[in-house]
């Protein structure tokens, strides 16, 4: 059964919430590797955070054994991929290990922005894509319309797309059959020199880096000496194996077409980078596989431990996270307000939130995150250019010739009834209208060019609220453009707080400054003295709010029986102070640094 023609390497792609993980669960269940009782729901999503958010962050793989109707056994390697636009890089890594993809489309929602993005990505990787239409059990399902949509909009043949309900298990058998029929067996020569692609990795404290590979040619087995072609590192393989559900299962060897892992006491992931090609040291292959598109961080923010003593712990945690997340970038930085921390780069805002939550939960850190920003190109009068990731590092105005900001091309899929509000939103965010494509009478794709800094924090929320949740959104970095940008400083009690500085377009500065001050006023609790909050551009104050002083905080009665109660009250008060960051002599709640940015949510 290990015959190469009986192997199928595939993934499932879908818009968020269209049922990808549920379908994966069903397939695992129906191939008999697990009994229903053993199934935790959504086996593939084994991080707590993923389960809570219902999204897949870290791609995972599992090997299934499928017995076809004619009695032949097939080895399925199902590789789960994230659905969110932030994680395009992770998707691309997973896709490169596959030969085909199942496209899941929700029968009630039809094609959404990320459906398109993921399909295009799959086609770019030369994958054979076949569609399935999910959620047909829902009363609002309209499978035939969706079938037509898939054909018209994507151009895939959907005439025999299985109609399924992953939740109820309906039609999943058809999907398994289709995998055999429509996804090609891997090509590759088992006798040729080893050539395998690293598509993911996981750090294990006992085994070192666990390297996820797709073998293109040759075979890899225990004891073999291998070379990572890009890094040049040489290692001896200690274990090879495949992916059981939620576990690693060692085996003899992995040969051409197979997906699995190896360990080799690798302590430093720099030696086994995702995208690198593994070959046998003694019998190397001719040339490396084409590398992956390297992920560029799009969003940067400062991350600081709220207890300055824990800086080394934060450093350690970031190092560990980076083992599993090559797209995470970080470098040390210092803030006057927050002390020692790191400037971190992320693929997008969701990626940032996920990393922050993982740092806090998995490493028990209490963090302060500063305003997320994008990478600006600052051209100086001396002819040099710097890439600015931290607003505090903006050179003096006299040294700046001009600045450029990143622009994305965005596709927004929306019901035609919300076209107006969404276009208005894009206009407010300095969008440049490119065009509208109608998918059907009631739905259209709006195409815009938008500055990235206008969409990184709350655009998605605003989009959802203005379309009652019916808009979906995808974007791609296009290029950089010259723009009239200014640095806004926020002064709390007359002192500029570097962690709150941000870059903004000159036309929107007054409005942003005003709202920023209003929001900070809500966030900063009253202190024992009056606290002015000001927004300034180039030393000129453009907005001001005042946090009034506390006039009264006193317990009137305190006699024999009140003393314990009084002490608890004081302890609570003192505890509350711990959630505060002292900036100058003002106590600012730690979450304020993030919260002030969510200005427009609910608009």
């Amino acid at each position, binding site marked *: 059964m290990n015959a190469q023609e009986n192997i199928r390497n595939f993934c499932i792609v879908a818009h968020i919430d269209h049922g990808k993980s549920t379908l994966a669960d069903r397939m695992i269940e129906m191939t008999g590797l697990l009994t229903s009782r053993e199934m935790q729901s959504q086996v593939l999503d084994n991080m707590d955070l993923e389960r809570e958010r219902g999204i897949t962050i870290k791609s995972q793989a599992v090997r299934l054994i499928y017995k076809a109707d004619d009695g032949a056994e097939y080895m399925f390697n199902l590789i789960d991929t994230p659905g969110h636009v932030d994680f395009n890089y992770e998707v691309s890594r997973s896709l490169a290990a596959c030969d085909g993809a199942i496209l899941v489309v929700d029968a009630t929602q039809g094609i959404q922005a990320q459906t398109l993005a993921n399909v295009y990505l799959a086609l770019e990787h030369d994958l054979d894509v076949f569609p399935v239409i999910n959620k047909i059990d829902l009363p609002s399902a309209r499978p035939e319309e969706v079938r037509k949509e898939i054909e018209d909009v994507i151009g895939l043949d959907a005439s025999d797309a299985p109609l399924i309900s992953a939740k109820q298990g309906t039609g999943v058998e058809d999907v398994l059959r289709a995998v055999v029929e429509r996804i090609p067996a891997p090509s590759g020569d088992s006798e040729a020199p080893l050539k395998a692609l690293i598509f993911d990795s996981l750090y294990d404290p006992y085994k070192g880096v666990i390297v996820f590979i797709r073998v293109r040619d040759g075979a890899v087995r225990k004891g073999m000496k291998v070379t990572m072609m890009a890094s040049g590192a040489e290692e001896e393989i200690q274990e090879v194996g495949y992916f059981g559900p939620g576990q690693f299962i060692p085996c003899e060897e992995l040969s051409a077409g197979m997906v699995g892992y190896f360990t080799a006491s690798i302590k430093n992931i720099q030696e086994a980078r995702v995208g690198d090609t593994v070959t046998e040291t003694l019998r190397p292959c001719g040339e490396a596989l084409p590398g992956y598109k390297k992920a560029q961080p799009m969003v940067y923010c400062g991350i600081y431990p709220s207890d300055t003593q824990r800086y080394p712990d934060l450093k350690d945690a970031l190092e560990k996270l980076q083992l599993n997340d090559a797209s995470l970038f970080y470098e040390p930085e210092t803030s006057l307000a927050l002390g020692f921390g790191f400037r971190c780069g992320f693929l997008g805002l969701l990626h940032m939130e996920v990393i922050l939550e993982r740092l806090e939960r998995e490493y028990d850190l209490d963090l302060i995150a500063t305003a997320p920003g994008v990478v600006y190109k600052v051209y100086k009068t001396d002819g040099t250019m710097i890439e600015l990731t931290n607003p505090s590092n903006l050179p003096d105005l006299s040294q700046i010739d001009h600045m450029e900001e990143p622009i994305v091309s965005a596709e927004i899929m929306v019901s035609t009834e919300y076209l107006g509000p969404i276009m208005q939103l894009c206009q407010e965010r300095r969008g440049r209208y490119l065009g509208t494509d109608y998918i059907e009478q009631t739905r259209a794709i709006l195409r815009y060019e938008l500055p990235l800094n206008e969409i990184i924090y709350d655009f998605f929320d605003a989009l959802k609220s203005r379309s009652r949740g019916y808009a979906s959104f995808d974007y791609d970095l296009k290029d950089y453009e010259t723009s009239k940008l200014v640095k806004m400083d926020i002064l709390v009690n007359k002192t500029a707080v570097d962690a709150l500085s941000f870059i903004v377009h000159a036309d929107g500065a007054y409005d942003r400054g005003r709202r920023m001050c209003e929001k900070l006023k809500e966030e900063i609790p009253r202190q024992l003295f009056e606290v002015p909050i000001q927004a300034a551009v180039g030393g000129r104050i453009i907005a001001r709010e005042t946090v009034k002083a*506390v006039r009264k905080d006193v317990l009137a009665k305190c006699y*024999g029986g009140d*003393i314990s109660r*009084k002490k608890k009250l*004081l302890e609570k008060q003192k505890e509350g102070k711990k959630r505060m960051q002292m900036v100058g002599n003002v106590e600012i709640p730690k979450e304020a640094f993030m919260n002030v940015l969510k200005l427009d949510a609910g608009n």
Partner: protein
Amino acid sequence: MKEPLSVYIHIPFCVRKCRYCDFFSAPCGDTQRKAYTAALVREIREYPLLPEDPAYAESGKYDIVSVYIGGGTPSVLKTEETESILAAVFDRFGITDPGQCEITMEINPGTVTPEDLHALRQAGINRLSVGVQSFNDSELALLGRIHTAADACAALDAAKRAGFENISLDLIGALPGQTMPEYMYSVKRAVSLKPQHISVYSLIIEPGTVFAGMLEENRLPELPDEDTERQMAYDCQRYLEENGYRRYEISNYSLPGYMSRHNTGYWTLRQYRGFGAGASSLVGETRFTAAADTDGYIRAVNAGEKIPCTTEHLTQKDRMEEFMFLGLRMRDGVSRTDFEMLFGCSVDEVYGNVLRRQEENGLIICCGGRIMLTDHGTDVSNRVMAEFLLD
């Protein structure tokens, strides 16, 4: 040398629960009141001062500074019940001359006759704390008090005629719907009755009270805003000081020589033993509070069992914290020498940084060997005191 000790007696009864009241108190019947009094007398006469250490011997160990009968409304007790309680206290602690001791009872207008007052004075009570709260009848009605302003004046008058020369009067300000002139009217009427002591509180709506429910349902007249409330407190303080009353604690004013000896004990870590349901005690390094359960208390005492209570042992750190945050409630603050004598180290060793910072911020003053709150520090005293909690 004998250790000073105060005695507190809790009477968890009242005629009717007031709408702002969150104390342990409820209306009672004759049977329950009698049973409670009997239990109280038995506890005072027979129970160890330290429940966890029945062998704790206190005979002759203590010098009783004060006795305080509080509630509730202790004046719902029949005179002979009060007498039996006092007799038990005198016997237990060997008090032969009650006149040497400050013996206070809380009374509410409308619950005592001139005859009652006379009898109480004879029984040894030498200080009264009268729950007047307001001199506006509409405010009294809103608070749920059972008396009128006229009743309060009559009670004070009768008390003086019964021979009481140390009378305190309670007022509550910042009442729902109250205006500045209405508040000052009560303050002025209080002063005109010439009590020796006045306690002034600002209303706090405590969870679980009738007022809290009314506030939630928007049925409460609007509460004075923070600025008005502060102005009320300032104007009250000025008026009282002009009339010879000195603010000696956050909420307490007195004529010279009439500070409450009993309450001052709470703010100076003096030991106290509370008897009755819900009463708190501080004996040695142990603070314990009997469960607020009247029937449970009666049952336990009748059976001769230990009275259910919560107990905490105060460490040196706890005591330092309490010494500071309780002591700072008093206008004269705390004494550096007292701190050193109690704890064997200087205040600066423990609180040097806190003191410096607070003084820079104008919240405390350190001078003449004492540490005290400024007026501003008093207004925001919770914030200041929280700083004295040690990590």
